[in-house]
């Protein structure tokens, strides 16, 4: 019956993007606009003894220079943490650290310069004289606990919170009952830099006349930013503050959070009564955008000789950086250990985590956010277990799958998986990869003296967070519903205002397909409006692969309300009872059952609603409906991936030759967009496996602030990805969809890592830490 949902309609937004006509914050130019540059700390940890801004202020073209105390005196508050798990101690920060306080990571903000040009502002930064008392840096997710270096006075052991889930006695009993216990000790999940294509930016304009502030910011969620600014950091009331996130060039989580620049920029715009713009340089983004992962974990998995997994025990230290970013404590708790059982039915499960503080850039959600860390630890350990009991890695996984007939399945770690069929998933994977053929290819390569390996992964994700009351119970200061307003114009065109936000995902197309099918109109008769608090209802934005599950469901609910109102008007005008009418969602009309010629077209009914000449008694004119949709559960997409690699014995270089992925993301609205998400995610996951590492030296100096050093995955590194899907619809949202944005990232890192380990296992290497650079592999295989 659906005519547009399920079709690979080309993205409506792409013509403007590929022609360079996107409207980004950095493109914004307002008459009189001044340019903001920020003085960043060159030290990882230092007391700010004094700041002398006089030379900078005297430079021709400099309008003003501000320090932290100026903002504090001007009413700016500390940045809050929006996710407070039990017994948390929250180390806070100012938008600009004032004299007498400390800088706690390279890139911490010291002062702000406003000038007539960005070049002059940059010159002035060099003229600001700061006297530091440099302190030793405390580093390492686990090592920081015992470093003896106090970063925040109220956190003497650099630990912000402990968190645990599961049943420790059951896990210990399961490990005791196992024939083998596989342990990966101090397993590292590397720190990553998100590196969205567009660096963060903010611009602000103050209206003295109306006392209204407009802030343009590269955010994935403008409404929550507005709320935080109003309630905590800037103090401008919500009805006087408009936050716009226009076209945003990627986020991957890093643009969810409330950042100091979103306070500094509007505060200065009001102070100076001039429009102000700040745009991060790439290196600034690399030292101030929230980063990802950075765990040190010890995982134990108990396994019987027949492959039955008896227990999983994980103990993790999660580096949260120098301060708690907005949702930082959510990631290594409710989005991490709750996924530690993967696709498997395991009786004894226990996980514990400590959120720790170091002299590094804050860490928060990054594509996958907690779920890749869980999948990596578990799927690496299962791979080691399979080798230990000499069992095929797919067979071992199959042995432990949650059976398809047990959904919805309550895991021992709080979540209830909604639906899935993991055997079907792996059947498809074995089919598209010709798994037996691949094994034969590997064995033949080995016989020819090559290092060849196959890596298998089964992955689970909890996408589309989450029932709001569950979020509240877990420490969230926000709800996770989503909003939609469906405005049918008198001519029958539709504007759909969504609280979700598109920063590359293609909502303008996929959401329009949903709207069009709800109403029976064309995809070009709909525009999706998002990203402007003055235009859309309060919404939660986009992250956690939630847009379609939650935001799309709100659209469906609003569509139902529009159709119901149209039916009422049609019943009145066709002199039929509503129950005798059919809303034809293919052709956009209402007709009488059995008498299809008696009908009203969508456009006629829309127009009638606005003329209001002939409406049923008591029915309000107009055609605009709203929905706030709170999800009943997460959705649980799942995937099965295989990587085939050959490792160059002499150099340690990895040659990824084949990659196959089967993903179950439920029903699909636009297969082309989903495939793009899956492939993009895979590439990002392989980036972590082979290339990316946000590294610091022993003094806390970041080593990878430019693309000369931080290795992003590039198209020429990869073979063609063979992707396929299976479909088990989510039973609890009206579209039957599951999140598609993160599955590839979650599965790909362990898939490639497992393949590399398989390749070098014949040389007696069990494990190497990420990223699997040629040097590390060379050292491992040569026992150097």
């Amino acid at each position, binding site marked *: 019956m659906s005519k547009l949902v399920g079709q690979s309609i080309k993205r409506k937004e792409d013509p403007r993007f590929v022609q360079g006509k996107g409207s980004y914050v950095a493109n914004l130019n307002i008459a009189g606009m001044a340019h903001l540059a920020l003085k960043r700390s060159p030290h990882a940890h230092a007391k700010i003894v004094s700041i002398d801004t006089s030379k900078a202020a005297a430079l021709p073209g400099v309008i003003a220079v501000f320090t932290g105390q100026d903002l504090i005196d001007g009413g700016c508050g500390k940045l809050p943490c929006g996710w407070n798990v039990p017994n948390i101690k929250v180390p806070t920060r100012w938008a600009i650290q004032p004299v007498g306080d400390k800088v706690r990571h390279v890139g911490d903000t010291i002062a702000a310069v406003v000038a007539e040009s*960005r*070049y002059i502002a*940059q*010159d002035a930064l060099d003229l600001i004289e700061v006297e530091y008392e440099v302190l030793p840096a405390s580093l390492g997710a686990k090592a920081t606990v015992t470093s003896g270096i106090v970063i925040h006075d109220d956190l003497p052991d650099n630990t912000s919170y402990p968190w645990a889930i599961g049943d420790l006695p059951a896990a210990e009993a399961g490990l005791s009952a196992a024939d083998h216990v596989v342990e990966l000790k101090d397993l590292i999940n590397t720190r990553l830099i998100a590196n969205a294509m567009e660096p963060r930016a903010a611009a602000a304009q103050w209206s003295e006349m109306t006392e209204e502030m407009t802030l343009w910011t590269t955010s994935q969620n403008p409404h929550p930013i507005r709320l935080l600014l109003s309630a905590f950091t800037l103090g401008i009331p919500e009805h006087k503050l408009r936050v716009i996130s226009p076209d945003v060039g990627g986020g991957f989580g890093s643009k969810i959070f409330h950042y100091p620049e979103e306070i500094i920029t509007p505060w200065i715009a009001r102070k100076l009564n001039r429009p102000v713009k700040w745009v991060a*340089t*790439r*290196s600034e983004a690399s030292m101030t955008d929230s980063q990802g992962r950075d765990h040190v974990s010890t995982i134990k998995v108990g396994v019987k000789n027949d492959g039955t997994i008896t227990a999983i025990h994980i103990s993790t230290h999660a580096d949260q950086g120098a301060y708690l970013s907005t949702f930082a404590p959510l990631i290594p708790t409710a989005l991490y250990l709750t996924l530690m059982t993967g696709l498997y039915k395991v009786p004894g499960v226990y996980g514990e985590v400590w959120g720790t503080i170091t002299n590094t850039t804050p860490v928060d959600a990054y594509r996958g956010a907690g779920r890749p860390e869980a999948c990596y630890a578990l799927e690496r350990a299962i791979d080691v277990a399979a080798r230990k009991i000499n069992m095929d890695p797919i067979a071992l996984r199959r042995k432990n799958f949650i059976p398809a007939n047990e959904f919805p399945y309550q895991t021992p770690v709080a979540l209830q998986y909604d639906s899935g069929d993991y055997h079907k998933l792996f059947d498809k994977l074995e089919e598209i990869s010709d798994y037996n053929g691949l094994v034969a290819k590997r064995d033949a390569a080995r016989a020819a003296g090559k290092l060849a390996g196959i890596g298998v992964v089964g992955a689970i994700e909890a996408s589309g967070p989450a029932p709001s009351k569950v979020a509240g119970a877990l420490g969230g200061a926000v709800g996770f519903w989503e909003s939609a307003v469906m405005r049918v114009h008198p001519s029958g065109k539709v504007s759909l205002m969504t609280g979700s936000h598109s920063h590359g995902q293609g909502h303008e197309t996929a959401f329009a397909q949903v709207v069009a099918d709800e109403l029976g109109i064309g995809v070009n008769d709909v525009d999706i409006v998002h990203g402007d608090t003055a235009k859309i209802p309060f919404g939660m934005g986009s992250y956690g692969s939630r847009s379609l599950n939650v935001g799309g469901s709100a659209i469906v609910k609003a569509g139902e309300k529009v159709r119901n109102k149209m039916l009422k008007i049609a019943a009145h005008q066709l002199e039929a009872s509503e129950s005798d009418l059919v809303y034809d969602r293919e052709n956009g009309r209402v007709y009488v059952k059995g008498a299809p010629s008696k009908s009203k077209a969508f456009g006629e009914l829309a127009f009638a609603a606005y003329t209001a000449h002939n409406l049923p008694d008591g029915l309000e004119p107009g055609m605009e409906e709203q929905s706030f949709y709170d999800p009943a559960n997460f959705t649980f997409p799942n995937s099965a991936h295989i990587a085939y690699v050959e490792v160059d014995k*002499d*150099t340690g*270089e990895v040659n990824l030759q084949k990659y196959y992925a089967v993903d179950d993301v439920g029903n699909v609205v636009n297969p082309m967009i989903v495939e793009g998400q899956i492939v993009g995610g895979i590439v990002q996951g392989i980036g972590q496996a*082979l*290339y990316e590492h946000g*590294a610091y030296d022993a003094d806390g100096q970041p*080593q*990878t602030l*430019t*693309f*000369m*050093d*931080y*290795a*992003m995955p*590039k198209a020429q*590194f990869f073979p063609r990805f063979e992707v396929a899907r299976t479909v088990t619809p989510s039973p609890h949202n009206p579209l039957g969809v599951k999140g598609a944005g993160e599955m590839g990232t979650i599965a790909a890192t362990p898939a490639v890592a497992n393949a590399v380990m398989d390749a070098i296992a014949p040389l007696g290497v069990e494990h190497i830490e990420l990223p699997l*650079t*040629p*040097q590390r592999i*060379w*050292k491992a295989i040569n026992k*150097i």
Partner: protein
Amino acid sequence: MFPANFDYYRAGSLAEAVDLLQKNPGAKVLAGGHSLVPAMKLRVAGPSALVDIGRIADLKGISLANGQLTIGALTTHAEVANSPLVKDNCGVLAQAAGQIGDQMIRNRGTIGGSLAHADPAADYPTVIRAVGAMITVFGPNGLRMINADSFFTDLFSTALADGEIITSVTVAAQDASTRGSYYKIPHPASGYAVVGACAIVSQADGVCSSVSVTVGGATANPVRCAGVESALIGKAANEANIAAAAAKTDESVNATMGDQYASSEYRNHLAAVAVKRALMAASA
């Protein structure tokens, strides 16, 4: 990514360019700009002025005369990579040029700029030394030629005197008995060479009559591997002999470059691997 203030001059001729350089101490020559401009944007380089030589026609073009292949300093990497003249007469230069950076860099970056910049991880210096090129420069005292062996003096340092500009690079055209190959192990972030080895092999009567091998990326400037060369001269270019010769790489290469991605120890190892692979390809 905002450079400090600088003056900009466009030179209409070589003489004018040299004059501008002399009048502006602290000025740098701008050719393709693909090393200099990023350094300026990061404020790692802060020249008081740029002298843009980009429109000086004398510095462009590839020609063959009297058995000498001459490549103008402003010739882009893409032009070298795609030039039939270069491919036919010194193929290894085209092969190496095709591996520099990415297509956008190859379309702008120039051979003269790369040599003058003398980045230890650049590809051209290694190849230029292996093929025994002569570098022609023009300065306040007129034209002179500098042998590639003595051109590179240290990290980002060359034998160019103040006010001198590279005008062209000249190599002897190679005949069919000579083959060259450049083997590069690139850094996945920058695309620069972690290690690159260039081998030129001439064969006569079934043995190597002359061998030239250089390694870049491991040291401040590319080094010549004399031990490897002499081990192979007079021998058949087969895998066993090449492996034995390549094992002598460590006589010449003692890596001083090293970082988190590739330690000096690893670079020393890679140098021998790259030398072997370059020799194999040059002998195939």
